[in-house]
């Protein structure tokens, strides 16, 4: 066989392999993009709920609630708020239960984040792998969690650190892979805790 034809076969073989690798790369990138978007959407959903509830701590239509926070630990907060703006204070609780793994998907690190309003519990199973609450007084000094009942009235700022991961592993060539991680962090300064 002609040397030129053999060479062109070899070159086109390399070309085919390169096309295959490029397809894999694009497919990987596309999967990562989709998973990250879904994860970001989930973070936004939880963030919206948190941003709806936390600023209302201690709020009640036409009056105020004394000592609205009753429990404040690193993974649980219970407070009173007129969440529906209907004139009656309800009890709201956020609790990250590290004894309740989410049994959907392959991620072993995600646990259920519970939001309870007046006894109605909502389990958020979107892939929350970390939910940490930190508390600060009016001088921004950290208050050690769990906050003792005598210090609950000192809380002025609440920092929420949330990390969410995809339920499924994003596979990589050569084995292994990673879960897509999206962090979210915010310090709330509920107006009704000011004074």
């Amino acid at each position, binding site marked *: 066989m002609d040397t030129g034809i053999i060479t062109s076969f070899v070159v086109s073989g390399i070309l085919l392999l390169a096309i295959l690798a490029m397809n894999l790369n694009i497919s990987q*990138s596309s999967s990562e*993009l989709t998973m990250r978007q879904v994860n970001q959407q989930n973070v936004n959903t939880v963030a919206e709920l948190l941003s709806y509830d936390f600023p209302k701590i201690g709020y009640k239509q036409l009056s105020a609630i004394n000592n609205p926070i009753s429990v404040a630990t690193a993974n649980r907060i219970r407070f009173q708020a007129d969440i529906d703006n209907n004139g009656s204070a309800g009890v709201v609780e956020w609790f990250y239960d590290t004894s309740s793994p989410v049994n959907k998907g392959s991620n072993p690190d995600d646990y259920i984040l519970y939001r309870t309003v007046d006894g109605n519990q909502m389990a958020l199973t979107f892939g929350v792998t970390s939910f940490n609450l930190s508390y600060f007084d009016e001088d921004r000094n950290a208050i050690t969690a769990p906050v003792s009942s005598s210090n609950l009235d000192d809380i002025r700022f609440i920092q929420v650190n949330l990390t969410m991961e995809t339920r499924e592993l994003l596979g990589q060539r050569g084995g292994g892979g990673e879960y897509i991680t999206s*962090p979210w962090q915010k*310090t709330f300064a509920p107006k009704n805790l000011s004074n």
Partner: protein
Amino acid sequence: MVGISEVIQTLGAMIIFSLILLTANRMIQTNTLKEVESEAEGIAVELAQSIIEEAQTKPFDAFTVDGSIPKDSTDFTTAGPGSCGNDRGCYDDFDDYDGYTDSFDTELTDPGTFAFNLSVQVSYVSPPNYDMASGSKTVPTMFKKMVVTVTSDYLRNNNQDIRLSYLRRYYKRDN
């Protein structure tokens, strides 16, 4: 000669493919950059909002901290942190945040890199534009404007900073 022509054709195909590959790689890289940048934008906005929300809980001016009611805007004090400097825990009114700077670690970045830098400006501003450029630290009005700027290398793709502003008005009931 036939063999050489096929080699040339294959090489031509390779060149075309290389161009496609470059474009595809650029697309993948752009996607990844955008992903990171959108997350960084979210983080930057939350950082800025946290400062604004915190400042909202503070009295309008040092003059009103003890509940005093000003006769007019001339009672208000010069904007700035006074002796508190950059100690945020010491701030007790809205304009104390003027000049405040901080750097933050976030989950997006490696610990200790402090990749997000925040700076705050507060000035008295006037209608109708309420713009900072024509505002003043020393000439009080009934309006204060806070501008929080967050910069980060993660936001540099379009040479972009995140800037949030908040206009606050002092309300006094006229008798």
